[in-house]
């Protein structure tokens, strides 16, 4: 079964003014679509054909570079669209809020650690909130790598991610990546992040 480009649960303009419609449309229909079709090309007829994306990523060290780059791109963007919402923002509640307080001391500490990880990732990549065997952690990965991959420095299950490739923000924010990161907090879908935290 080939991988399919997932639909967004909202309109391209729904995250305005934080993320503009043109960026959303190109990001989804061009970048994400290209990762999806290249992933399908890379796994077609190989031993990975038919495996789940999670299964592929957790054993990525034995896969080709094309599977790593496009499989990561496919998974990361799929997560990214889900953890944003036009009704997003605010702060997490319940178990997730407790786990964040436990790991980072406070929500504000977490927010600043996550924002710094996103701002300081040099070049293209992602910043993540990850469930690890030692609790929640913030990390960042280059290009389309992610914490599910067995090659990742911090390994675990990502429950929140921000894309800091320039294509994620350049049309609206140009060189001002910190402004994009600040705006991202207004669209985070904490219900979805909490759902992923519960597992």
């Amino acid at each position, binding site marked *: 079964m080939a991988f399919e480009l997932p639909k967004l649960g909202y309109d391209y303009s729904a995250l305005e003014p934080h993320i503009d419609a043109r960026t959303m449309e*190109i990001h989804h229909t*061009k*970048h994400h679509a*290209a990762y999806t079709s290249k992933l399908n090309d890379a796994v077609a007829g190989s031993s990975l054909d038919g495996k789940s994306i999670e299964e592929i990523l957790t054993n990525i060290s034995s896969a080709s*570079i094309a599977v790593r*780059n496009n499989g990561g791109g496919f998974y990361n963007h799929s997560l990214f669209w889900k953890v944003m919402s036009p009704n997003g923002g605010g702060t997490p509640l319940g178990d997730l809020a407790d786990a964040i307080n436990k790991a980072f001391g406070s929500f504000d500490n977490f927010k600043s650690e996550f924002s710094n990880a996103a701002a300081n990732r*040099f*070049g*293209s*990549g992602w910043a993540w909130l990850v469930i690890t065997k030692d609790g929640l952690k913030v990390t960042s990965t*280059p*290009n*389309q790598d992610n914490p599910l991959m067995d090659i990742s420095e911090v390994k675990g299950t990502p429950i929140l991610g921000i894309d800091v*490739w*320039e*294509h994620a923000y*350049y*049309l609206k924010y*140009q*060189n001002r990546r910190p402004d994009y990161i600040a705006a991202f907090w207004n669209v985070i879908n904490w219900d979805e992040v909490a759902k992923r935290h519960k597992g």
Partner: protein
Amino acid sequence: MAFELPRLNYALDALEPVIDRRTMEFHYGKHHQVYVNKLNELIKGSPFVNSSLEEIIKEAEGGIYNNGAQVWNHTFYFQSFKPKGGGKPEGELASVINNTFKSFDKFKEQFSNAAITLFGSGWTWLVKNDSGDLQILQESNAGNPLRNGLIPILTCDVWEHAYYLNYQNRRPDYVKSFWDILDWETISRRY
């Protein structure tokens, strides 16, 4: 001595339509300038406070390397262009390119392919080694071949900021147009 943003030899709109004025304003006026500013901040009180950019590229790590190499890379990139450029290399560089890649067109194809397929942010380079042999390299992020003792001849910036305002996801279109603004007289002299 603090590093300074070098001047451009052409106006910000001089490379249109290949590279648009707005891209140049950000790329040169913001990105390049910020690399210069950050480098100057980072070297204060560091062992590199009196170093040349080349020394920084060869010896530094982390932020000093990244910002130092990005200053050098952008200066080199912007100095490779002229309005109504294009054409082909001259003199010795022309014959070495023919010997190495069979023809200028084959070289162009290989270099373009390296620029299109570099995954993520980075630079594609044409470099020469000590014996004068040419090679095409893909370097991620701030990667600069001087670090490995190679001499840069030509580079293409494939960070998305170099082309996104004008070309968005169509990096191949940017790479294709890139050949129309090259200043081969300057580039040939580097060989």
